[in-house]
């Protein structure tokens, strides 16, 4: 039954209030017809008796209390899916904007998705070779993982994401697809991703959802949900290995905050709503694999840390949900090191089960441990050197300093097009460690050292 309601009761930010509504359903989609003949889409967010709060996706500009007609559709937000969505470009709500017409739906799905039953999950173990040493060796990406990039404005997170996507998808042959969701990013950034996909000749395997910086904020809240619904469809119905790039999660969370504020909700830390954790989790947890089903959803969310502060609620809560993080560092970036991955705070939680014999190489975990432990000591030596001067350092600390420099220049640093195999990466790590005397490598047992310690490199 389609009931039309004339007039509104109030408008506040992106929220419209309407009363006298019978039988409204939670999360139901409504259409709002304006006096000038245009129409907008909204979603029921709160019901109190016959009073209903509606979130208007395109914003409430130009809406008046008198001339708005509201139609309740009786269904939640859904999205049209078909194998033909590959290669298409949509707006933040999943409506085509590439001029190729509507998608003929094979299936429609609620964009909110449903949680994957932990019993049905397949524990991710397959290593994805990104060809980037710092990631492959020290924060290994696993198929079905959610591994965000914590960056800051002006750092090269977009380049890194493109390089990961390009180099990791090559190995997959025909079975891969990419879902790219832009939330509040600049037009140039969206263009950069698009032209990179075109250059890599993968555009026919990409689905793009664009909610750019000047697009309505409220749509932004739905963008990742649409993207992940598409990704789940491609992965678990069409059995592809899907890599989802979500950028920029900071804009998403800020949209959520703005919207929460207009609803008059009680704010938590830094004004973000108390449910930010649950909300982010409902997105990130949609990565994974299902036992007995071919296909996977791997997520690479990108977020810019406000003021490079990792304790800000957005990176903080993200880190608690995702399976590790890749943190970019401004000092390394200034030094011209690309990718500027700060390896100490970076981490991949699934790495421990996806590396080693049968996956990468038996010495991988020992090498990673030793590299990180040693590089942590380099930081101590650096701190000391900045106080007393490098000349005054002990012999051991001087060795550490030169190891640190070589590690940054040769291991972390690589070119945008360089695709190192895991074997090359690990061997490079061992040859760098071999600059140090054997007794300084206290995380590795002798058998592994015998096999990999390179004699003659030591300074």
């Amino acid at each position, binding site marked *: 039954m389609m009931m039309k309601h004339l007039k509104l009761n109030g408008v506040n930010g992106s929220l419209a209030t309407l009363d006298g*509504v019978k*039988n409204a359903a*939670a*999360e*139901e989609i409504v259409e709002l017809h304006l006096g000038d003949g245009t129409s907008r889409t909204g979603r029921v967010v*709160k*019901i*109190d*008796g*016959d009073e209903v709060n509606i979130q208007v996706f395109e914003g409430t500009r130009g809406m008046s209390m008198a001339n708005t007609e509201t139609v309740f559709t009786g269904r939640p937000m859904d999205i049209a899916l078909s194998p033909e969505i590959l290669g298409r470009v949509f707006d933040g709500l999943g409506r085509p904007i590439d001029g190729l017409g509507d998608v003929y739906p094979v299936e429609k799905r609620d964009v*909110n*998705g*449903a*949680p*994957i*039953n*932990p*019993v*049905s*999950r397949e*524990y*991710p173990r397959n290593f994805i070779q990104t060809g980037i040493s710092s990631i492959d060796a020290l924060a290994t990406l696993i198929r079905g*993982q959610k591994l965000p990039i914590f960056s800051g404005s002006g750092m090269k997170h977009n380049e890194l994401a493109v390089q990961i996507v390009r180099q990791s998808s090559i190995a997959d042959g025909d079975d891969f697809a990419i879902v790219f969701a832009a939330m509040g990013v600049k037009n140039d950034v969206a263009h950069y991703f698009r032209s990179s996909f075109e250059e890599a000749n993968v555009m026919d395997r990409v689905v793009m959802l664009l909610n750019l910086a000047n697009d309505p904020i409220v749509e932004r809240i739905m963008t990742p949900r649409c993207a992940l619904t598409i990704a789940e469809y491609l992965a*678990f119905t069409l059995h592809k290995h899907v890599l989802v790039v979500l950028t920029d999660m900071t804009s998403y969370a800020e949209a959520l905050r703005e919207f929460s504020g207009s609803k008059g*909700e*009680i*704010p*938590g*830390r830094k004004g973000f709503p*108390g*449910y930010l*954790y*649950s909300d982010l*989790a409902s997105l990130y*947890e949609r990565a*994974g694999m*299902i036992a007995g*089903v071919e296909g996977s959803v791997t997520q690479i969310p990108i977020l810019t840390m406000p003021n490079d502060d990792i*304790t800000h609620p957005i990176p*903080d*809560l993200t880190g*608690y949900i995702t399976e*590790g*993080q890749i943190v970019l560092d401004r000092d390394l970036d200034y030094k011209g090191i690309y990718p500027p991955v700060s390896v*100490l*705070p970076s*981490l991949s*939680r699934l790495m421990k089960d996806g590396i080693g014999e049968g996956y990468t190489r038996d010495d991988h975990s020992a090498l990673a*441990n030793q590299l*990180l*432990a040693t590089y*942590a000591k380099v930081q101590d030596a650096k701190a*000391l050197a900045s*106080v*007393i001067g490098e000349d005054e*350092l*002990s012999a051991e600390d001087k060795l550490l300093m030169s190891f640190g420099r070589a590690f940054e220049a040769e291991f972390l640093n690589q070119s945008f097009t360089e695709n190192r195999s895991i074997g090359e990466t690990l061997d490079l790590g061992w040859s760098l460690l071999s600059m140090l005397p054997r*007794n300084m490598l*206290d995380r590795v*047992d002798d058998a592994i050292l015998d096999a990999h310690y390179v004699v003659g490199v030591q300074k």
Partner: protein
Amino acid sequence: MSENKIYGINGPVVTIQGETDLSMLETVFVGNSRLIGEVIGLKKDLTTIQVYEETTGLTVGEPIYSTGAPMQVALGPGLLGNIFDGIQRPLPAIEKKFGAFIGRGAQFFALDAEKKYDVTLCVQAGDRVSGGDVYATCPETSAVTHRVMIPPDKSGVIAEVRGNGQYTVNETVAVLKTDAGEEIPLTLVQHWAIRTPRPIKKRLPAVKPLITGQRVIDTVFPIAKGGAAAIPGGFGTGKTMTQHQLAKWCDADIIIYVGCGERGNEMTQVLQEFSELTDPRTGKPLLERTVLIANTSNMPVAAREASIYTGITLAEYYRDMGYHTALMADSTSRWAEALREISGRLEEMPADEGFPAYLPSRLSEFYERSGYVENLNGTDGSVTLIGAVSPQGSDFSEPVTQNTKRFTRCFWALDKSLAYARHYPAINWNLSYSEYIGDLSNWYRDAVSPDFMKYRDELCALLSEENSLMEIVKLIGADVLPDDQKLIIEIARVIRVGFLQQNAFHADDTFVPLEKQFKMMHVILHLYHRAKEVVARQVPISKLLATGLFDKLVKMKYDVPNNNLGLLDDYLQEIDTVMDGILR
């Protein structure tokens, strides 16, 4: 009776207008799809219900059905080895019904109603029984015998007993006649409201440690059986990893592992790993002594709030049988956030950082359900609580960490910089503490060695001395220190890397028996004492370091297998020989 209808919907909170006959904390079914909910507020003209499932599509005017009972769990054989959501619905049954994605509005009986257990009756007709008495036993898994008890609030005379044999959980095995003359059939199942602690006879002092096989815990910051510990740490510091290690190796009889608002993949991992790993004490798969409760971060928030209580009720039930149980809650911060989220929807007045003012009292209620007790049936049992805390922004001054600290006596503070250096478990020895040391020292004296506590204190003193020396080193470098202080720094390195740090992926190092912990400590301190003697005679420390003894001790955790501890005595001898050689 007036019919209850939905009036308002706000996320997981649903309201009913007008007076109702519902009672506080009663379980209700909401809407035509019968979603599970719980009454959390009663006013004259408004009843508030939190719904344990996603409310999308719920419509105003749909009916609300009362059940007349509070949220409760089914207790009986079939819990162990199973995995439940926050309100005790078995996830495998949900999978069977809905497939890989969790659907809504389904009710399940928590236990396997088809499975037959080999039941042995241990009462006879005419026996007088009261709450807690065991009337039947059955092997629940090959590792654990289930003792079926009279519910705590019932007593009377056994009127009838069926014979030993094969029964399903819902079949009557005996009949109880209460003093009021009511006949109650006794099956293998009883029900208990999750928010009510199960009664006990009395509390006993907690004087036995929970042995975990983790050196930094057992030796430095031990926890008692029946104690409560908090593991706070920012992301990536290894909270979950530590909880997994404890769940795998600690010497409790029963483990309840609650994944409260955490990652789905982690629960999958626990499920897989625990069915593959064997319990070193019984030789059976670890899963046979474990109950998993998984309410992952993307599952409904109200059920997350309940999951902690579901878990603790199961733990208490096994405690009542006379078992030592341990509950790992990962993470209590997510539970506190669920409280905050629901409190926000109720528009309650927020206290610290938006958390409700009743956060401290809820936390204390929860942690006080731990304890070493004498049960109603006279057996001893314990519930040990180990709660992970995920402080916002890794800042330990936030409300959940601070309030948890007040109600736990063990504080294992995880440290980011240790984790960055891949020093795991990243328990910071300067920030952590255990108040159980005094209570447990007699046990260590009698069961391990009279010297245990003395060595432990010396170890801690060295670490704390190193800590103050490092302040100087950070400013002017280690070179200027006198040799006896350099020695402290060197020996502290051996303690840190060789003792405190433990490799969870190493076959021998993942679990270390107390005897080995003690002997390792002995060897390290022996080296220190002898080296101190040598340094006092003006031998330069570089000469000591050149012996390679320090590096050798760092690796002894790998070099000495757990089943050949005699090797550690050779270390003592070698130290003596080398030192004597230097002095000669």
